């Protein structure tokens, strides 16, 4: 069996020492996991190496860790793959680097304190269904797609990999974070929940809520269950801003609608107009800018002035909102027609529900039995065993 080297970030709180690195050799079939490697170390060499683990099959969510800098599950990462990854830049002798998850305090070795970071945030989003009135006699009747849709968030196993990977949390520990916000979508998207608006208002107004996500996709890559937390956050924004018309104090909604309107008018982005419109739609329109918006606009001025000084913004004109040119010829009109068409339909193609066609050609036999048809009538109680 091949040998692999695991370089593990260890911390033994009772030793009085700080964290340190320790290398272990393991011999393991290449298709076994990094977790299997750690368990081999624990069983054969050092029982004091601790790592939360249970199912070994990416369903219990215990073994979140960082492998070669990436937040993931130890059980889901093949050791050969991890070895290859560790050696992409520097040839064949680099060890596989294993660390506890980031953005959380470490308790011991690979065990982190998820209660104070992850679970507190989960509880922050009122993580239970809030239906209106008494339940019906039978089940709630809801669109079948809606249940598939929120099952994507329901597939979250609370492993914390997304929390560990989150680049907003890294600089703002108060950010509610990808896991909790995906959990929030699970209720907002649930037709049985009666408090969607209240939930959205809360998460839009919180400076550490949906508009504190930097759209970096780290959580999408980290998630072992394809929950795509960031996608759910973007949908929360869409529903908050566009379906519920929530005008948040963080300028999230204003930024989005200003951007969208500018492209309708100009085809490409007029940054000056965007700054003005995001912060203070009231300057030109009928809305009265919020104090926060004015503060934001004023805050952006030094940057703009500096740009002017270096010639970055080629002329003073560039700084005047609205001077930016439209697309040439009739192109702008065509863009505007696209707006009319798309705003009328607002179709949201959800690949989690529909799947991808080219990956899904139906098998040749059209006569595949439906689940119901696969059931045979109960045979008579006779015949051999």
């Amino acid at each position, binding site marked *: 069996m091949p040998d692999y080297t695991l370089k593990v970030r260890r911390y033994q709180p009772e030793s009085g020492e700080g964290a340190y690195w320790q290398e272990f050799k393991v011999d393991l079939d290449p298709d076994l996991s990094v977790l299997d490697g750690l368990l081999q170390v624990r069983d054969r060499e050092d029982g004091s190496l601790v790592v939360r683990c249970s199912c070994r099959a990416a369903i219990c969510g215990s073994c979140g860790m960082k492998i070669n800098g990436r937040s993931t599950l130890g059980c889901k990462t093949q050791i050969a793959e991890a070895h290859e990854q560790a050696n*992409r*830049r520097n040839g064949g002798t680099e060890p596989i680097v294993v660390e506890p998850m980031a953005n959380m305090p470490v308790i011991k070795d690979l065990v982190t304190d998820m209660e104070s970071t992850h679970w507190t945030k989960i509880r922050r989003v009122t993580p239970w269904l809030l239906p209106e009135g008494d339940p019906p006699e039978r089940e709630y009747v809801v669109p079948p797609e809606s249940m598939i849709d929120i099952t994507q968030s329901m597939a979250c196993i609370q492993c914390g990999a997304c929390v560990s990977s989150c*680049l*907003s949390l*890294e*600089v*703002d520990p108060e*950010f509610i974070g990808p896991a909790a916000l995906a959990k929030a979508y699970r209720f907002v998207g649930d037709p049985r929940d009666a408090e969607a608006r209240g939930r959205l208002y809360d998460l839009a107004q919180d400076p550490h809520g949906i*508009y*504190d996500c*930097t*759209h*970096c*996709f*780290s959580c*999408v*890559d980290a998630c072992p269950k394809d929950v795509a937390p960031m996608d759910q956050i*973007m949908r929360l*924004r*869409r529903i908050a*801003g566009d379906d519920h018309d929530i005008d948040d104090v*963080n*300028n*999230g909604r204003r*930024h*989005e609608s200003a*951007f*969208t309107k500018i*492209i309708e008018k100009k*085809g490409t*982005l*007029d*940054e000056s107009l965007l700054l003005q419109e*995001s912060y203070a739609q009231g300057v030109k329109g009928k809305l009265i800018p919020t104090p926060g918006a004015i503060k934001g606009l004023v*805050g952006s001025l030094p*940057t703009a002035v*500096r740009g002017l000084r*270096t010639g*970055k913004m*080629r002329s003073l004109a*560039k700084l005047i909102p609205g001077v930016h040119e439209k*697309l040439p010829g009739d*192109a702008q009109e*065509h*863009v505007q*027609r*696209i*707006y009319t*068409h*798309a*705003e009328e*339909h*607002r179709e*949201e*193609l959800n*690949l989690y529900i*529909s*799947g*991808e066609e*080219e990956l899904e050609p139906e098998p040749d036999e059209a006569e595949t039995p439906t689940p119901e048809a696969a059931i045979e009538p109960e045979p008579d109680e006779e015949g051999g065993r």
Partner: protein
Amino acid sequence: MSDLKLAYWPGCVSRGFTPELHGSMAQVAERLGIELVTLDRANCCGAGVIAEHNTELADTLNARTFALAQSTGLAMMNICSTCQGAQSECQQRLDADSAYRAHINEALAEEGLEYAKDKPGFENKNFLWVLVEDYGLDQLKAKVTRPVAGLRVGPFYGCYIIRPRHRIGYEDHPERDLYLERVIETLGGEVVEYDGARKCCGFPVITMNRETSLRQAGTHIGDALDAGADCLVTPCPLCHLNLDMQQPEAEKITGRELGLAVLHLPQLVGLALGFEPADLGMGKHIASTEWVEARLAGGVPV
């Protein structure tokens, strides 16, 4: 001489707040022998923001850009990680479902446009990908007249060009998240390893959570300085805005003096091809590029 001819989508920001990017790209392409056919009728990619509002709208806008590119019969190149990401996301949806695609194409019909899935020869690639995969690092190396020897460069990718993994094309090009390092080395520079290379610049939340945004930018710049970088290089003009234009603001938030030059990818290539910093608009940057220029002139001890 290269026979590369590409439909070119410069994006909005390269013609707005970072005009030096558009200018340097044009010069560099010419010297490399890459012919660019600018899509001057094309529209903004939406930067993920329009998709936040209405995914169908974002998909249709980008389908229009793709259709314009397809009508030239050429492959398409962009010079912005954010364009790459936002456009790839829309393309994935457009390609996933024929009925949806037909619906979107309805909106393009009046302009005589149609987006076709899997059209032979059509691809949408960032300049970085074109450089490594289509132009080739050997050919690039041959064009280098003034290697950026001794220049310690920190790569800064921008999220959208490396994530999410399932949309970046790693199956066919597994090393796309290492290309910047490759290019830096090919140009004669030295790669600086630091924490922030593949992290977020913070730009997407600059108007919504200034503190989070600038703390990200400031932290990465600080890490790169600590690692001994002379400059950063990025294929994304939005990253450039937050890392360069906002650098003085990031200094205030992080309480640390920074002062690190941030180059656009075509600028770094241009320097190695022999262009002068002024030709490449480096004087327009907020964070001074003097240190880089001095290093290249041999004026700073390595």
